[in-house]
Every structure is written in structure tokens, then in C-alpha cells.
């Protein structure tokens, strides 16, 4: 039983936020990006120690100066980003920083044994001597969780742990959470997914702009109320798809294949054909490993020579040899990881916005800063970007606003075809809503949109048509009317489903 209450001074990120966590409960922390959830758990975990206020762990007041200090008291934090060292083995990663030794030497056998035992208890039976990088992302996430769990955990914090997991892995994780709960752990769970909140939460605390808005029992709290707390305003329609008039075929993909360079004879994308019309949103469903992100990357030219098949843009043949040609041909690819390959964090909003269309702002090679700024200002306004100044480096923006900068970059190229890979990942409810409305506006302008999203309600609501992929192949196609969550999931798991 813990009682936590703190304020964070200096730049006021948190003001007088407090909540209690009981043992054996799952307490969901909800709120938009920038609400202060991450700061709060970093304070709890000993990452920041310059705050005012008080944390009580059971009856004793505590104040952690380092992550290890918090860990020693049984507080484990599983961060959103993985903190694994790819080339090192699973066992080495699990014991990283707290290696077991016999005298001066590392006790490798006992570490491997224990690591294996702990993984098995999480339902994961893998070879712990293999490097972490060999395993798929979902497995890596489970390894991360295993690493983070202290032996006698009292509090576990999970910051969006499911964002990289497939459906079955999520189920497994929920099973583990249940187990930990029964062992008497208190679990703080941060998520942007509505289903998860209702599935897991015993109680919910909502933060907004660094302030505590409400804490309530999950049972009996209705969705609209919760959203209203989070955004501070009412969203009357969660997914506002306005069907646009569809026109000519803008993107045609036929017999598209991407060879898997690491495994001979295998394909990441296997004989995929589809069409998207002007003004249409085509949703692609699929679980992790379905090859749908690779499909978009392949169309955009990131796989160079390992692709075969034909692509036509507005009836004209297009060979996807490199991203540069794709941009020129009017394709825009919003990748699913803005930090990894979407934004240049050191550069400012203006420079990021014009990066993909810089030729237009530099006749003869000479940059025109004024017209760049003007264009960025226009985009910022139409996307409702919230920033103190356009000179701000994008690393200082919140997740939702960073995503808007990536969107601005691609809209600035004036694309004919928009490939959106998880456009609302790690984005708060309000910004999500704005992105949906933008998608409507783009399709109304005649842009053909291909949408990948792991959030089923979003996929169902925003897509005009849905194709489902499983292991690189298309296994089903549904119209907007005929698609249901159950049918899509079945097809994504490789079953035959009538359209």
C-alpha cells in the first residue's frame, strides 16, 4: 500500500499531482501526451530526484536518488523504448548491470539458468544464449519485461507496453499482469488504448496539463466521461469518417513481391495486388510479421532491387528503386516510428517541414528561409500544431505535435498517394481526432490513402475498404460494410474468411 504525492518545480510539468496505489490492483494512468504521466513515473523510478512533494512506500517516506535505489525497493519500470543491447545474449541482457559473479569471474551458467527460469515463468521458452537481436520485436518486449521485474516486486510501472506486441503476445502479457496482481504487486499501467484501459484497470487516474483531474474506479465509468476528462472537452464523434467521392485509380500494385534477403527463397511480401482510387482510404490489417509495413516501404522504394512486380501511379508505370524517386512520383510514406526515421530531432520545425520538398525552396541550390518559414507556418496553422515558435527543435515537442510535423513534411510535398503507417501511434486522443479529420480532408482533395493501423476500431471506422495480410500475402478483402473485428482477426491469423 503506497501513497504517492508530488509536485515538480522549475518548469512546471507537474503541479500537486498525487494518487495512491494499492497492492494487488492495476491502476491506469491516462491522459494526453504531455499530461505529465512519464515525468510522474520517472520521479517514482528514481530518474529525476529534483522535485518537491513526498512519496510514501508503505508507511515509510522515500526519495530515490537513482534507478537502482528504486529497483532495490522493489519498484520496476518498463519503459516504452526497449533498453536491450542487440548483440548481447538474452541472459546477458537480463542480468545487465547486476551480473552474478563467483569471485572475479562471471557466473554464466547460473545466470543462464536463472534467466531461463524467469522467462519460462512468463511463458517464454527460448534459448537464452542467443543474441536478443535474433528475436522478433514482441519477444524482445517480453525479455525487457523479464529484465525489469525485480525479484520481489512491489510496484511495476508499464509505459505503453503493448505498442509493439501482436494480439497473442498482448494476451500473454495480460496473463502475466493478472499473475503479478494476484501476487500482491501494485501495477501502474500507462496506455492510449481504450480497450486496454477497460480490460485491465481496477482504478483510473487521469492527468491533464500536469494536473490531477480525477481518480475513479474503472467499473461504472463511462467512456465519454473518461475522454472528456482527458481532453477537457467533449468529442461527440470518436471516428468521423466522411466518405469522399472516389475517382480514378491512382495507385495500382500488381504481383508485388519483396525478397527476404536474410532467408533465401522466402518473401517478406508475396504476390500482392491491389488498387486505390482517388479519395479512397484503403486499410491494411495484419498482425506483426504480416509484411504490411514492408509492403508500404517496398512501394516507396526502400527495398531497392529486391522487389518485383508492377506499380502504376495515375496510370503511369513506376519503378520503386529509391525513396527519392518515389517522392518525385508523388508518393509520401509516413513511417511508423517518427523518432527512428521520421524526424531529424536536432532540426527545427521549419527545417523538418521542408526537408522532403527542399528543391522547391532552393532555386539554384540557394535556400529561401523566408518562404520556408511561410510554408511551415501555413502547415502549422492548418494542422493546429502547438509550439512556442517554429524555430523550436522538434525534439522539444510532445509526441502528437511531432507527428504533426512529420505530416506537415509530407503534405508539403503535395502527394498524390499517402501511405500512412500507424499515423496515430503514441498520439493523444485530441490529436488523434485531428488526424482523422485531416485524413477526411485529404481524401476529399482526391489523395489516395493507404492506412495501416493496429487499432481495430480506427481501422474499421476510417477505411473505405480493408485488405488483410498474413505472412506477406493478402488473405481477405472486405468492404466497409462487411468488415467486422472478428472476420479481420480471423483472416489476419491466416484463416479463410468469406468477404
Amino acid at each position, binding site marked *: 500500500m503506497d501513497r504517492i504525492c508530488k509536485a515538480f518545480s522549475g518548469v512546471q510539468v507537474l503541479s500537486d499531482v498525487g494518487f495512491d496505489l494499492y497492492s494487488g490492483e492495476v491502476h491506469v494512468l491516462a491522459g494526453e501526451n504531455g499530461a505529465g504521466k512519464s515525468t510522474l513515473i520517472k520521479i517514482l523510478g528514481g530518474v529525476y530526484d529534483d522535485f518537491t512533494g513526498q512519496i510514501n512506500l508503505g508507511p515509510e517516506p522515500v526519495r530515490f536518488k537513482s534507478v537502482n535505489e528504486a529497483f532495490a525497493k522493489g519498484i520496476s519500470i518498463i519503459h516504452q523504448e526497449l533498453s536491450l543491447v542487440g548483440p548481447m545474449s538474452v541472459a546477458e541482457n537480463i542480468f545487465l548491470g547486476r551480473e552474478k559473479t563467483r569471485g572475479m569471474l562471471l557466473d554464466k551458467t547460473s545466470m543462464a539458468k536463472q534467466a531461463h527460469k524467469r522467462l519460462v515463468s512468463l511463458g517464454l521458452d527460448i534459448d537464452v544464449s542467443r543474441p536478443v537481436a535474433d528475436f522478433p520485436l514482441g519477444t524482445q518486449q517480453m525479455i525487457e519485461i523479464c529484465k525489469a521485474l525485480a525479484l520481489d516486486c512491489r510496484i511495476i510501472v508499464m509505459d505503453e507496453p503493448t505498442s509493439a506486441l501482436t494480439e497473442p503476445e498482448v494476451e500473454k502479457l495480460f496473463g502475466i499482469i493478472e499473475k503479478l496482481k494476484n501476487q500482491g504487486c501494485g501495477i501502474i499501467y500507462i496506455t492510449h488504448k481504450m480497450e486496454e484501459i477497460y480490460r485491465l484497470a481496477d482504478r483510473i487516474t487521469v492527468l491533464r496539463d500536469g494536473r490531477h483531474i480525477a481518480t475513479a474506479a474503472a467499473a461504472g465509468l463511462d467512456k465519454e466521461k473518461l475522454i472528456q476528462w482527458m481532453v477537457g472537452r467533449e468529442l461527440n464523434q470518436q471516428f468521423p469518417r466522411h466518405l469522399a467521392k472516389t475517382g480514378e485509380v491512382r495507385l495500382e500494385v500488381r504481383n508485388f513481391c519483396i525478397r527476404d534477403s536474410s532467408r533465401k527463397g522466402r518473401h517478406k511480401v508475396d504476390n500482392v495486388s491491389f488498387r486505390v482510387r482517388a479519395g479512397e482510404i484503403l486499410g491494411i490489417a495484419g498482425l506483426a510479421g504480416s509484411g504490411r509495413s514492408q509492403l508500404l516501404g517496398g512501394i516507396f522504394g526502400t527495398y531497392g532491387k529486391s522487389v518485383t512486380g508492377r506499380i502504376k501511379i495515375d496510370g503511369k508505370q513506376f519503378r520503386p528503386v529509391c525513396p527519392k524517386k518515389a517522392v518525385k512520383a508523388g508518393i509520401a510514406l509516413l513511417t511508423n516510428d517518427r523518432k527512428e526515421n521520421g524526424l*531529424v530531432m536536432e532540426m527545427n520545425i521549419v527545417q523538418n517541414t521542408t526537408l522532403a520538398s527542399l528543391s522547391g525552396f532552393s532555386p539554384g541550390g540557394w535556400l529561401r528561409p523566408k518562404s520556408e518559414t511561410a510554408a511551415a507556418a501555413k502547415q502549422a496553422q492548418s494542422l493546429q500544431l502547438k509550439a512556442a515558435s517554429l524555430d523550436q527543435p522538434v525534439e522539444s515537442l510532445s509526441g502528437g505535435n511531432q507527428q504533426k510535423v512529420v505530416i506537415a513534411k509530407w503534405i508539403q510535398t503535395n502527394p498524390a498517394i499517402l501511405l500512412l503507417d500507424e499515423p496515430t501511434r503514441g498520439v493523444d486522443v485530441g490529436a488523434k481526432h485531428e488526424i482523422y479529420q485531416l485524413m477526411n480532408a485529404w481524401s476529399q482533395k482526391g489523395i489516395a490513402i493507404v492506412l495501416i493501423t493496429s487499432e481495430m476500431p480506427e481501422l474499421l471506422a476510417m477505411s473505405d475498404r480493408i485488405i488483410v495480410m498474413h505472412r506477406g500475402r493478402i488473405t481477405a478483402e472486405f468492404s466497409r460494410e462487411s468488415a467486422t473485428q472478428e472476420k479481420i482477426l480471423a483472416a489476419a491469423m491466416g484463416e479463410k474468411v468469406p468477404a
Partner: protein
Amino acid sequence: MIYENAQSKIRIARWLYSPTARALGALVVVFVLGLAFNADGAFFNWSTHRDMLRAVSVYGILACGMTLVIITGGIDLSVGSILALTAVSFSLLTIHRGISAPLAIVLCLLIGAACGVGSGLLIARFSIQPFIATLAMMVFARGLGKLISGGQKISTAVQLPDGNYSYVEAPQIFTFLNSKVAGDNISVVTLVFLVCLIISWILLTKLRPGRYIYAIGGNEAAARLSGVPVSAVKTLAYGLSGLFCAIAGICQASQELQGDPEAGVAYELSAIAMVVIGGTSLRGGRGGIWLTLLGVLTIGYLEKILSINAVGEDKRLMLTGAIIIAAVLFQKTRK
């Protein structure tokens, strides 16, 4: 009004923590040391400063190219060897072959640029790590310099067929590049350095490839997916670094009145140190050419102050090493 006041306070605070302010801080500290240990007023003579500027110019020219490369997130270890290669080539062409200065300069610039483009292609097209590719170029260019010079210093002493030496007059370009202008107040090589700074500045801040250099250093994957011609821009950066090496090589040959195939050993390390002291990040994506100028001046003044105070080379090197660490630590401190 109060709000505005707070705003300007924040702005000043932000500036104080900016790389420029930090690099300037290091330079000021060194300069104040010079005022304190002025060697009986020697530090107050302009000629001391002029000589310091002359002494750092060759390094500074190398540091210009190094800055471009480091901002892309790379490194160029071959600059000292390319300097030697071009210094030898320049001496051979002008002194021994009697080729006119402008043509010889163009040829040497081409040689330097070709070496840089070579490393650049290895890095961009064949994905060889910059450290390895330029290390190989460093060894290769050194060898090529020795090959064409026969391992000898190429000076005004020309060996005749009968084995005797005859001394020839050094071409005018040598004396010109080694002279001082503006009433003997500034060295020509310093002006050359200034021109290199301005070229780099225009490239980095005014031209499209400059923006791409920052983008690649900041996030190469994002740059590639935004349609940035990553390979071409990287090749350009290394090519320009090679070109600056050739300029430095020509200046070096003029100052020494000879082309020494052993010249420029460990110059790459000085150039890297100057860039880093300026505050340009070795991780790429951050930095600038004026920061490099501050780094060049910091090291230049430090060496000059130590030498006018008759500190021996042994202690001078040790102190320089310590100062590099101090300056970089100073850059890193936050809060």
C-alpha cells in the same frame, strides 16, 4: 513588461548555454591567460597575433573540411596524408616541371578532391565505416605521395642527370602565398583560411546540400526516406574535405618552400580537436563553421601563449591535451 523581461531573461539564459557561448567562453579564458602571461608585453604586439593566425591557418583549412564531414556524422582521418600528397604534387609540378601556378593549383585541387571523393564513395556506396574508409585513404595517399616524390623532399634543389644538385629559383606563387599583406599585418595563408571559412559557411547555411548535411548527421534514415540524395551529399562532404586538404597542402608547400612527403602527420588529430573544442558534435547533426573558428583560435592562442612564455614542447603538448579535455567537459556541463 514583466513578461517581456522574463522572455529576454530566458533568451539570455538559453544563449549562455548554447554551444557558441561555451566555445567563446573557452576562447576568452585562454585569451585572458594570454593577457596575464603576456611575456613582457609580447602578447600586446599585433605581430604575435598575426603569427599565431599564420601558424593555425593550415590546420584551420583542414578543420573546415573536417567540420563538414563531422556534421554528416562521419570522420576524415586522411586529411594529413592528402595534404602531404598535394604539397608534394604542387612542388613537383611548379618547381621541377615548371608548370604555371594556376594550372598546378587546379591539378592539385583535383587530386585532393579525387581522394576525398574516393573515401566518400567507399562510405556512401559500399557502406564502409568512415573511420575505416578514411584510415585506408590515409595510408594510401601517404604511399602515393612517397611514390611520386621518390621518398624525397621536393625542394628547390633539383638533381641533375650527373647526380649533382642545382638550385632553382622558387616560383613566385610560393613567395606570394608565404607573404604578408595589408602593411605586413596579415598573412596570405590566413586570408586563404578566411575564404575557406566563408565557403563552408555559405554551403552549410545558405545552400541546399548544407541543409542535407545536417539532416544526414541528425537522422540518416529519416533523411533518406525524405528523398534526400544521401550518397551524393556524403560524397560531396568528403570530396570537399579533400579539396580543402589540397588548399592546405599548397599553403604548406609554400610556407616550407618544399613538398615534404612526410608532412601533415597527425594533422587530422589537430583538426578533429579544433572542431570538437568548437562544440561540433562527433555524433553529427549539430555544429557549425564559426564554432570551428573558435576552436581553431582557442588552440592557436594556447600554443602561442605557451611558446612566447618559453614553455618547452613537452609541457606544451601535455597542457594542450589537458585543455582539450577541459574545453570539452566545459561544453558538456549542463544546468
